């Protein structure tokens, strides 16, 4: 994995890691700036504004025009609609293949035993004073708030970088304190180094003096997120907040196997009775699939639409099932294909900041997304 030069450099005091990725050197980066909080003067209003807009909901930035969404890492700031708060992988490499031993003593084939799950891979050690427990605690906190059905589709795999002190029992106890579903892996030094190489993560640095049992281990600080299609989707450096995980995990889970759904957002008319939604689907899998339809929670009617020129006039016509062959991209964008939905103006969905949208695929089945609602933009202007 290449270090991302756009990530801020901040050395860990007493723990410099030569040639390690920049992420490995991240330590308590300043909390991200949150737009809308700087002009707070009026007291009561300030409370409401400050907390309500603190970024605990998905951001509502500008739309990501079709096609560009997945392939560029986010440099800084809040994620755009359908975009990840983490650093999106420019190169969705496949899940690394390595076999280690889990904390119950069983062999664990990383690729095979996490197949079909959103997998969060982290290399760390249980005596770590800061980065490792904070990452694990934040993940556990967010997973505990997700619907059980969704949380069970996430695998958190912690690979020790300190096999001497991290015995299987200690790994199990330590991880179990966060979430008993977390998986701890260990192995010989050679096996662990091979796993690090396979994942593209920098080697660890530990030079304990003889007899020293309180040494620290320099290690990469990022969590690698592999989508359910088995490809690297994003990296999460130290400093990733719970709200970032809460924002990203549903998106990462949203992709049906092999299907990447990117840049989803919606707009609702000022009359609050109708809206339209947009996204891009890329079929990165080996099997063809078909988008059958869209459902919007709280909507009374939904339909996929295409714009067609008929007799010199652009008309909106229903879009039938949309086939997606391997490698195909389906773009729903403003001024082009889109989905429309009707709302009851008094419904909570009509004023929601985000909508729960379910895409129906012939092969992959139903895939639910959280789609941010952007302010209405009059196409005539």
């Amino acid at each position, binding site marked *: 994995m290449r270090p991302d030069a756009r990530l801020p450099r901040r050395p*860990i*005091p007493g723990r410099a890691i030569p040639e390690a990725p920049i992420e490995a050197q991240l*330590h*308590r980066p*300043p*909390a*991200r*700036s*949150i737009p809308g*909080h*700087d002009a*707070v*003067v*009026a*007291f*009561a209003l*300030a*409370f*409401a504004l*400050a*907390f309500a807009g*603190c*970024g*605990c909901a998905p951001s509502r930035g500008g739309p990501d025009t079709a096609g560009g969404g997945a392939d560029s890492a986010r440099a800084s700031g809040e994620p755009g609609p359908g975009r990840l708060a983490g650093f999106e992988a420019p190169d969705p490499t496949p899940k690394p293949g390595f076999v280690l031993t889990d904390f119950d003593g069983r062999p664990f084939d990383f690729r095979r035993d996490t197949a079909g799950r959103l997998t969060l891979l982290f290399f760390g050690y249980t005596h770590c*004073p*800061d980065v490792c*427990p*904070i990452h694990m*605690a*934040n993940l556990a*906190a*967010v997973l505990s*708030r997700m619907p059980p059905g969704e949380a069970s589709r996430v695998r958190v795999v912690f690979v020790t970088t300190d096999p001497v002190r991290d015995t299987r029992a200690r790994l199990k106890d330590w991880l179990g304190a966060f979430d008993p579903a977390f998986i701890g892996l260990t192995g010989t030094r050679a096996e662990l180094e091979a796993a690090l190489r396979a994942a593209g993560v920098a080697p660890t640095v530990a030079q304990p003096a003889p007899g020293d049992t309180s040494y620290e281990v320099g290690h990469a600080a990022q969590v690698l997120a592999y989508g359910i299609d088995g490809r690297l989707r994003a990296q999460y450096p*130290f*400093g990733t*907040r*719970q*709200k970032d995980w*809460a924002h990203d995990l549903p998106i990462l889970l949203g992709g049906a196997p092999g299907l990447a759904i990117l840049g989803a957002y919606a707009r609702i008319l000022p009359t609050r009775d109708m809206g339209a939604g947009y996204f891009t689907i890329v079929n990165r899998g080996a099997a063809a699939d078909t988008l059958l339809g869209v459902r919007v929670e709280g909507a009374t009617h939904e339909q996929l639409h295409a714009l067609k020129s008929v007799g010199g006039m652009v008309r909106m016509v229903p879009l039938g099932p949309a086939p997606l062959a391997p490698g195909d991209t389906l773009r729903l964008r403003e001024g082009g294909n889109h989905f429309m939905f009707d709302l009851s103006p008094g419904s909570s969905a009509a004023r929601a900041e985000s909508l729960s949208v379910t895409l129906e695929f012939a092969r992959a089945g139903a895939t639910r997304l959280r789609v941010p609602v952007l302010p209405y933009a009059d196409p005539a202007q």
Partner: protein
Amino acid sequence: MTWWCAASSEPWSWAWRAYPGVWLFIALLAAWGVVALRGNFAREATPAGATVRRAGRIAAFVFGVLFTWMALDWPLGRLGGGYLLAAHTAQYVLLTFFAAPLLLLGLRRGPGDGAGLPGVNPLVSLLVYNALLAATHVPAIVDAMMPTQWGSAIVDLGWLVGGIALWWPALHPDPGKRLSPPIRMGYLFASTLAPTIPAALLMFGDYPYYGVYELAPRALGLSAQQDQQLAGLIMKVIGDPLIWFSTAFIFFRWQARLEREEREEES
């Protein structure tokens, strides 16, 4: 050089730390108090009971200084500076609801001896207090301020200033410039309204609001979520009852005075 408690990347430990900036501030506060109290006493006549009242004022000021010190120095200052939001909130409560009123009580003057100190419109006081409270609880501001010693010092001292602004109309050193008891009670009740908003948000927020505390090495076994809930609880469970107690105290004293005056009129 570390001179004020601020967020640090070091794991929390109970090892003692020196914060000379805090000591200097406390020394200056105490020295100023000595000068102010001596000046007050020198201007006053010494009627019967004056010695007891003076002892009470000295005690109030000393406790005000001690609470300020407790809030700012190790361990609470260090914990609140960058490890636990609950400790940060405890600092706020100590400075605003304990230290500030005690310092003002210590500086009480005899009737008519507060000419040099201005009275403040209670609405202005409420505005200043709530503006400082709001600014020092906005996540973006807290996350930007607490990692620096200057920022942390500004937040801490802002709370002391906010506390003094809050209590000034109710405990003005010149009794003649204090609010009348019924207005004082209404004023104190009004002061509890705005803090309910951040307290409720802290207690019921889905995720931690402050990155500086969420990403801090954990301390005292509290998760970021528990820490935030405890902070909300401290803000309301300690801050508000103190105001209620003060309001009740004012009410009963006022009642007693009315009854005394009634009896005097009858006799």
